[in-house]
């Protein structure tokens, strides 16, 4: 690292390298170009070949009518006729195999060609060295992996990765255009991308010069002189502005108006909470209806069972969903003011959890507990749905009930509180 430019590492310039190295490099460049051409050519030839074969086979299958099983089948063990989709998929699989095979062979051929060139060079190099007086430098070349070997290994690995990429890319296109499954598409896409990624990483590892670079770090902060100079410029600009108060006024006024615009626009998005938050949903006298829109009577449930009910006209409503249960009357432990809310042991509670608003849909008949499936809060049905476990703090609102002369159940009033999760203004 030289003192005046530490950002530049030492690379041997073209003149510093030995002339023999330069000829090797030039020949290698030619050899590499040749092998890539060869690789591309073989790949194209094989790809076209397998495509033609595949299309021919598909055409033969189609002409043979479905009842007759195709004669040549590689994978089939049983005699069951297969669906067209299965056929298409096995075709796709076979083509994939062909494609991969073709690309690997192409890579093999091109690498073999490259190998031959390198071999020739090494022989020539040895011959040259044998004739010359051996220098210490040359002996060192033989220790470890030689640059030529590194080139060769790297090229083989990168070519293999590119072969995988090409095969899988071909497979993806074929499967997409023949309407194959998502799994095959995903697998081929993954292989294609993995091939590309592997090629780049291998390239970086094997085929680029590895040099650790060192660079200086600048201090994070500005120097006092720099910041002082900036401050001087800024202050002179401020002094240049006439009537500074007017400018401040404009700023305040403008910001205020823009804030007012934003707030006004939010009004269109439902700015204020409406009264639905406070609604107790049911009205006195409304009949209890089941999900199939029939009124519920005093004979609808046996003790220990439950059903889902709604107010007339709100079947399926999220907020109005109510759970109706029947328990033995002697078990009830309702507070005194709710004594008349449960005719014949019928109890109705809001089905929306007071914790986070899920539907409280599970009932343990032995313990008389309603349970929320989301956070496992439990509510004691016999005691006004008071929470007994889990994170909920407030009871499920209860619906007062009465039965008319025909035994049809009606709501005596709205829920005892607004149903659903709690909020700041909740009564």
């Amino acid at each position, binding site marked *: 690292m030289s003192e005046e430019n530490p950002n530049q590492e030492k690379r041997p310039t073209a003149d510093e390298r030995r002339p023999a190295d330069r000829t090797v490099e030039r020949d290698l460049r030619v050899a590499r170009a040749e092998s890539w051409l060869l690789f591309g050519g073989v790949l194209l030839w094989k790809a076209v070949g397998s495509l033609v074969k595949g299309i021919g086979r598909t055409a033969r299958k189609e002409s043979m009518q479905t009842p007759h099983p195709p004669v040549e089948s590689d994978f089939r063990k049983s005699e069951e006729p297969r669906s067209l989709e299965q056929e298409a998929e096995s075709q796709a699989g076979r083509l994939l195999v062909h494609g991969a095979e073709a690309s690997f062979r192409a890579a093999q051929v091109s690498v073999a060609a490259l190998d031959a060139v390198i071999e020739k060079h090494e022989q020539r190099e040895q011959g040259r060295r044998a004739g010359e007086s051996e220098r210490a430098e040359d002996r060192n070349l033989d220790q470890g992996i030689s640059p030529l070997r590194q080139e060769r290994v790297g090229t083989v690995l990168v070519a293999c990765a590119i072969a995988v990429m090409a095969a899988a890319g071909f497979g993806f296109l074929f499967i997409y255009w023949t309407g194959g499954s998502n799994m095959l598409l995903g697998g081929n896409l993954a292989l294609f991308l993995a091939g590309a990624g592997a090629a780049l*990483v291998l390239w970086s590892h094997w085929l680029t010069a590895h040099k650790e670079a060192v660079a*200086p770090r600048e201090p994070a902060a500005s120097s006092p002189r720099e910041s002082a100079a900036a401050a001087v410029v800024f202050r002179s600009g401020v002094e240049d502005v006439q009537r500074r108060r007017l400018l401040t006024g404009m700023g305040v006024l403008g910001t205020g108006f823009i804030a007012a615009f934003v707030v006004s626009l939010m009004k269109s998005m439902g700015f204020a909470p409406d009264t639905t938050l406070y609604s107790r949903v049911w009205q006195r006298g409304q009949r209890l209806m089941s999900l199939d829109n029939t009124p519920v009577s005093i004979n609808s449930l046996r003790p220990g069972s439950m059903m889902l009910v709604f107010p007339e006209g709100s079947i399926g409503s999220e907020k109005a969903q109510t759970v109706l249960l029947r328990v033995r009357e002697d078990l009830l432990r309702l507070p005194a003011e709710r004594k008349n809310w449960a005719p014949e042991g019928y109890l109705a509670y809001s089905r929306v959890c007071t*914790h986070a608003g899920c539907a409280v849909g599970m009932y343990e008949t032995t313990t008389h507990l309603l349970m929320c499936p989301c956070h496992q809060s439990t509510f004691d049905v016999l005691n006004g749905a008071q929470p007994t476990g889990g994170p909920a703090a407030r009871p499920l609102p209860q619906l007062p009930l009465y039965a008319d002369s025909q035994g049809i159940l009606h709501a005596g009033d709205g829920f005892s509180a607004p149903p659903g999760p709690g909020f700041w203004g909740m009564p």
Partner: protein
Amino acid sequence: MIESTARFVDSRLRLSKFVRRAMNHVFPDHWSFMLGEVALYSFVILIITGVYLAMFFKDTTTPVIYHGSYTPLDGVKMAAAYRSVLHISFDVPAGLLIRQMHHWAADIFLAAIIVHQARIFFTAAYRKPRELNWIVGVTLLILAIANGYFGYSMCGDLLSGAGMRIGYAILLSVPVIGPWLTFIFFGGTVPVAATLPRFFALHIFVVPALIAALIGVHLLIIWRQLHTNFPGPQRTEKLIVGSRLWPSYTLKSLGLFFLVFALIAFLGGLVQIDPVWLYGPYNPVAILPGAQPDWYLGWVEGAMRLFPGVNFRIGGYLVPEVFWPGFFFPAMMFVLLYVWPFIEKLISLDFRPHNVLRWPYQQPFCTALGCATLAFLVVLEFAGADDVVALAGHAHVGALRDLLRILVFVVPAATGAISYLICLWWRRRRASDNAGLNIGNEAMEELTQSQ
């Protein structure tokens, strides 16, 4: 060709000087420095797949009858949004692949961000002058979590409907402004038709734009300040050691992009995620036992399940129980993350700038704190699935919850103590190693100065 194009541009923008310096820019080599890149590349893949999905998705809850190729749901009434998701999954060629890749990319994006941030924390890379980038990073984490939530809430299936309702309850519980926030955000009491277009606009325009802009800021700051180095030969406060941007770093990083893309394509093609057709359309009266949010919100879910039902009124106004674990707790966690670099300064009384990292064993207290926090989150993550865990272990949910209420404090404390002791042991071992060799490098200096 390349040269003539470069000459055309350069003769108009005078870029040569900048480009030369850029190509010589040095990036340190360490596997843990790739985690942020993984996050960046997952974001790119999210954009690519997301644009494709947006062409087919319908952001309305208009009720429709399904007649697509997924016969088990034939003739079922559902929201138009859910039908469009089914259409993408079963009728658009490669649609399911793209949809699953999008979801997997989101999960990998978040996982990479979290592991990246853990690396920053455990090596104290957030110290001066990098506090600003830490703050940008925490904001990116919050935005990523929010966008994940918006994304999986839009599908219109039963699971996403439940998630939307819980999100509504959490926002509603905020004292004073909660109901207003909720009505601005959700457009009414959910489920309501106005919610989906808002989530859609946020999910595909607002949040991605913010994330993209902040990623830009993040990278610019790294570019300006240069990356940190682990302690080592030549890796001092005044020198950076690594690979140059061109060509080795570019090749490696581009390779990493393709490998991340390959992993996501593999998962998207072969590993099922969020099979919305199994859950059925959202129906407010239907229940779905064993439902969990995506894992990056599982810790909030766990806190909501473990927190006791504490409910009180201030001047007659209610502060609901769900506010504490659902809003206050995650908000506090993020506030603590934001201010952590400044808290650390007060603890260590070290206000100098640092470009050389600390190994975790060189900062036993911070490492113990980080391990305890991670353990805390893992226990909460388990608590977020306590019903599933109870079912699998034939335990009673209530009993398991009581146990977890204890473990959520015991496990982090034990983890913190054990990691502290490991750090001390490790430090002593390294100190005796170094004493024998008698080398006064930066690491040694750091070692004697810390603590």
